[in-house]
């Protein structure tokens, strides 16, 4: 965190100053480790084993916050008899389908629940990264469940969890992660000791944690621990994602993703959502409990925001204009489609895939096969100059004279040269003023898209083709100002907030939205940010002049609520768990919820409220169910549906690993998303043969001195000079083993690429003892590319393309490689080197469906089954 988020890290230092103990788990000793009280070196890609160890420690020693767990989580809920655990199936859950490597989730459901008919099948969910829809609410389940509050029933979630994590012992943590038991126990002890009635603990992660073939399950494991310890919905608790750059939260709320619409509404699918009714019903699940019952309202308001007066009840609010998904349109599928000539044109906005995305060579070859490419960036980045400067020029794979891609480079305004909002990890929107005019022809994205739309609409103005109606009927009337006709960002914020069509009055809350077309709202969860016609995100009242929650600094969605599910900060009867952690409570005299924050609960629903048997929607949530966006009102220790790779996290080895999975016969995530394409070659892992060709583990991350793919730092001299060259960090042991010398050259080879770097031999990298073997890890920064003041090979070229099945995030934090002294070969020799490695390692490509390794006999696994 000190390395990638030094400004946020000031608060960790502040906590440390007040006596907090800081633990840091990382494959290499970083600037965070330097000030941590305990540093735990870990083998990259084994975090579920570590966190699973903590779950085991909590359950084994009964250290969970029992009253919280019984009342607020689904620990007591009983699961159907059909469910079978990884314990019974060598690392698979019940319902695995060999044909397409997905789970039929039916056997995971709660006892007595019908099989859900409205949910898409798992394969379609994987194709459309459906897990992202659950970012603001749980997957659909019915509300009424069979419960055993003694937690003794063998099929209650608590017992299932206990059995599932039974083998994640401290010994196993040491064996899998390479973390000595004493150190692991120090961590587990501190975490559990600092949670409960009087204390809460927070889990903070950075997005590298998600970049694994089991990325979603990493976070799930953290969330399970936080639920068991009562650290959710309470002050000082929670799971916080430190995003990779400003407003990544904002770009999922109002998404730049292929499968989502604003407010986590799913992008319509051509087969499953042919009509407006089908679309909204698939979100609302009629008869189901929780706040998503109003999905039709949110959907209609969005359509009204897009198409204004043209959207009427008679034409289903122009639902027919909406584009439809036909499958996977994610960034990696698109790149492979470009290589295959299926995509003609592409927009790149503030993104540099030639450096920043996995498998850089595939990215560059894909872009070199387009008709046109629009790049908007602050600097001339690698993704704009690949056709003349890419490493593939030297190898002859791209010939500048014959590269057909016409690149349009348009200079972009930086964040200080335009106004708008940033949304950070706490869902807090903060308005940013423009500090200076953008230089030269640089313009904001808002300017670009507004005027692009304006010009296209002018060109099509006389068109009578039905296909052009969607464009011509758009509401495209933002006021502009200044010499460059810059659209007003506040007017966009007003539309996002929503307003009453007849009076133009901005809505104060999404509860004011109507589904009859009389209101408009571009993103229902953001409604209220422009309440009373005031830009609430621009509020800057100092913390010293308001309460500790600081509600008048910026604006948080939903409804300016700073902690979600904060009903959980009070006990089931509505009293604070403790004076120290008092936050939201039930005021019996006034018969309402009150406290420091906006209660995340119906204000006057008493703790004693119990829903009628057939109640649905919000009325179906009981007075002591804090998790109001879950169908059963509970925090999910066990996910009966919606998580495609299993109801509970399971340690699988990274797709490329030198180690046989010590926990199960199943080696890697069986449901991972795989792209079978000749360019997507694979390093073998045990039990496959030849895994010794790539014996070392490499991981990549950031340096404080650079930013992501480097455009904003490698082009700026005060930053570039601070880390001026690409380097690789190796331990003294590996340096001796491979003959590497400090500040000499080394190159790393995978079945995709060879990348050279200067060597830093440092004690900060240590070998680990894993399952009786010594495993060497090396670390590289991923900031370098071939443009800018300082240049170097790109670490991400080393990776292949394998994705998590839930949200299609790539595994780009761990892989295997060989490390050789000296510079890499050039030209054809470079190609020959990589080809030779591929030949020696068995010429593998990623296969689909993914390899299931349960049928491979291996004596080293399942010994403890």
């Amino acid at each position, binding site marked *: 965190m000190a390395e990638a988020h030094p400004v946020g890290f000031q608060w960790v230092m502040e906590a440390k100053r007040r006596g907090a103990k800081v633990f840091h788990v990382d494959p290499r000793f970083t600037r965070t480790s330097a000030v941590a009280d305990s540093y735990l070196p870990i083998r990259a890609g084994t975090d579920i084993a570590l966190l699973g160890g903590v779950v085991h420690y909590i359950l084994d020693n009964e250290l969970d916050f029992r009253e919280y767990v019984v009342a607020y989580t689904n620990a007591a809920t009983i699961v159907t008899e059909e469910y079978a655990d990884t314990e019974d199936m060598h690392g698979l859950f019940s319902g695995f389908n060999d044909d397409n490597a997905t789970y039929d989730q039916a056997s995971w459901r709660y006892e007595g629940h019908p099989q859900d008919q409205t949910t898409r099948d798992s394969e379609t969910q994987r194709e459309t990264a459906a897990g992202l829809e659950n970012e603001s609410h749980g997957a659909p389940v019915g509300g009424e469940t069979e419960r055993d509050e003694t937690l003794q029933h063998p099929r209650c979630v608590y017992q299932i969890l206990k059995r599932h994590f039974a083998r994640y012992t401290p010994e196993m943590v040491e064996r899998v992660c390479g973390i000595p038991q004493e150190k692991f126990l120090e961590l587990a002890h501190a975490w559990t000791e600092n949670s409960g009635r009087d204390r809460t603990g927070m889990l903070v992660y950075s997005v590298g944690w998600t970049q694994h073939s089991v990325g979603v399950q990493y976070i799930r494991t953290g969330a399970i621990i936080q639920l068991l310890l009562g650290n959710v919905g309470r002050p000082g608790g929670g799971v916080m994602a430190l995003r990779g750059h400003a407003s990544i939260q904002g770009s999922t709320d109002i998404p730049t993703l292929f499968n989502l619409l604003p407010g986590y509404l799913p992008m319509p699918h051509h087969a499953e959502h042919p009509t407006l009714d089908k679309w909204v019903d698939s979100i609302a699940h009629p008869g189901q409990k929780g706040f998503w019952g109003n999905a039709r309202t949110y959907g209609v308001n969005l359509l009204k925001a897009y198409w204004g007066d043209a959207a009427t009840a008679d034409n289903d609010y122009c639902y027919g204009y909406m584009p439809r998904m036909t499958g996977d349109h994610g960034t990696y599928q698109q790149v492979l489609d470009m290589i295959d000539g299926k995509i003609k044109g592409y927009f790149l906005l503030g993104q540099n895939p030639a450096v920043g995305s996995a498998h850089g060579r595939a990215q560059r070859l894909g872009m070199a096969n387009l008709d046109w490419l629009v790049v908007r960036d602050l600097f001339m980045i690698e993704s704009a100059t690949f056709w003349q400067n890419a490493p593939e020029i030297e190898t002859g794979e791209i010939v500048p004279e014959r590269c057909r891609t016409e690149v349009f480079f348009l200079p972009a305004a930086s964040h200080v040269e335009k106004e708008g909002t940033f949304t950070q990890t706490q869902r807090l929107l903060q308005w940013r003023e423009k500090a200076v005019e953008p230089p030269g022809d640089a313009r904001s994205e808002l300017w670009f898209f507004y005027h692009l739309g304006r010009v296209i609409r002018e060109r099509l103005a006389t068109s009578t083709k039905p296909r052009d109606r969607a464009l011509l009927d758009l509401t495209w009337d933002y006021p502009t100002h200044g010499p460059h006709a810059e659209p007003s960002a506040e007017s966009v914020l007003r539309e996002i907030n929503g307003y009453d069509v007849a009076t133009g009055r901005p809505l104060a809350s999404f509860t004011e939205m109507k589904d009859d077309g009389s209101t408009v709202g571009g993103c229902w969860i953001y409604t209220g940010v422009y309440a009373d016609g005031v830009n609430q995100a621009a509020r800057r009242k100092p913390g010293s002049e308001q309460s500790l929650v600081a509600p008048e600094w910026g604006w948080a969605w939903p409804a300016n609520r700073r902690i979600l599910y904060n009903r959980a900060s009070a006990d089931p009867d509505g009293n604070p768990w403790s004076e120290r952690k008092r936050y939201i409570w039930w005021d019996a005299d006034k018969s309402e919820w009150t406290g420091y924050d906006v209660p995340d609960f119906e204000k006057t629903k008493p703790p004693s409220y119990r829903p009628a048997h057939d109640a649905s929607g919000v009325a179906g949530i009981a007075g002591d169910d804090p998790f109001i966006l879950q169908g059963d009102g509970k925090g999910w220790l066990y996910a009966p549906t919606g998580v495609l790779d299993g109801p509970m996290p399971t340690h699988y080895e990274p797709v490329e690993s030198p180690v046989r999975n010590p926990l199960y016969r199943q080696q890697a995530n069986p449901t991972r998303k795989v792209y079978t394409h000749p360019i997507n070659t694979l390093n073998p892992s045990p039990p496959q043969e030849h895994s010794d060709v790539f014996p070392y583990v490499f991981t990549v991350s950031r340096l404080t001195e650079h930013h992501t793919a480097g455009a904003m730092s490698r082009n700026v001299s005060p930053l570039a000079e601070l880390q001026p060259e690409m380097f690789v960090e190796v331990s003294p042991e590996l340096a001796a083993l491979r003959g590497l010398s400090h500040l000499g050259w080394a190159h790393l080879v995978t079945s995709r690429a060879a990348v050279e770097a200067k060597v830093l031999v440092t004690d900060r990298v*240590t070998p680990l003892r894993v399952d009786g073997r010594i495993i060497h890890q090396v670390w590289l920064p991923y900031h370098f590319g071939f443009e800018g003041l300082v240049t170097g090979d790109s670490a991400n070229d080393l990776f292949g393309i394998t994705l998590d099945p839930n949200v299609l995030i790539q595994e780009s934090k761990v892989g295997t490689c060989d490390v050789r002294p000296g510079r890499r070969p050039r030209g054809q020799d470079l190609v020959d080197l990589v080809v030779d490695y591929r030949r020696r390692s068995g010429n593998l490509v990623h296969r689909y469906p993914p390899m299931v390794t349960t049928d491979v006999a291996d004596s080293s696994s399942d010994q403890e089954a």
Partner: protein
Amino acid sequence: MPHANALYGPLDPAPDAGYENAPPRMGFFTDTSVCIGCKACEVACKEWNGVPESGLDLLGMSYDNTGALTANSWRHVAFVEQPRSAGWATPAFAGDPDGPAISPATAAVGARTSTDTGTDPGLPTGSPAAAARMSGGPEFLGMPGAQPPGRGSGAEGRTDFRWLMMSDVCKHCTHAACLDVCPTGSLFRTEFGTVVVQEDICNGCGYCISACPYGVIDQRKDDGRAWKCTLCYDRLGVGMTPACAQACPTESIQYGELDELRERAAARVAKLHERGVPEARLYGHDPNDGVGGDGAFFLLLDEPEVYGLPPDPIVTTRDLPAMWKRAGLAAMTMAVATAVAFLGGRR
């Protein structure tokens, strides 16, 4: 009449320089125990003061690619990797396998590192022979901290490890030799007690460079003039905090009235001692030291040499009165002797 301590000993420099009603002396307290090595200070300094680039070379000195304070780097964050316990923390690599240390050859490569900072004397190169000798393991040289930054440890027992970071800067000495020797008056004492170069009247003579006991001040090769930290004199004048302190996310660099900073620093050291960090100590805080105390002082976690600081700096003009006295005496003796010789000759 100059102050009795005008050249050595405790002194409040601004009034001594002739400022009437001078504001309180301002300075920096750099608490290295909370430094996270982000280098925001270096960047903020360069941005605000328009300091040019100082070379795009990888130095191999841990994460330090600046190397030293030069005319083109007015803040410098040192990174020191040490095979010793942080004391308050669990041993970093306890229980992990270990093996051979960095080879002598490797250490020698690292030590040969040099970079063209465009300044003179700029960044001194290390001694490959010494580095190779030291890589063999701790060798008692009569000094603590046998390892240069970023170099390896002994062959066995790589359990303990710590990584020290420290943002170095001009010390703004009470007795600033650079200022004392400056023939043009380019270097001057400000009303805040700080020491600033007026670049428009610097004639590039370079006397200040050899006068500085810390090796801070340095010349730009392209224009020949001397440059160093101004403690953001332009910002101080309008009540602003210097750029580096403003940018520091962890309050490692604290700016304020020197008296208040010294109290704060003493309390911080006491607190760290209480928390089991006995190695915490102050550097440059003492008005009785060889430079009369620094305007920019530090809390360190090891001996000053480990960070590349002189252990006992003494203002190079300390002995000026004595030297002049002796020179005068010698001249007088000579004159007397000559006179005696002539007188004697006449006899």
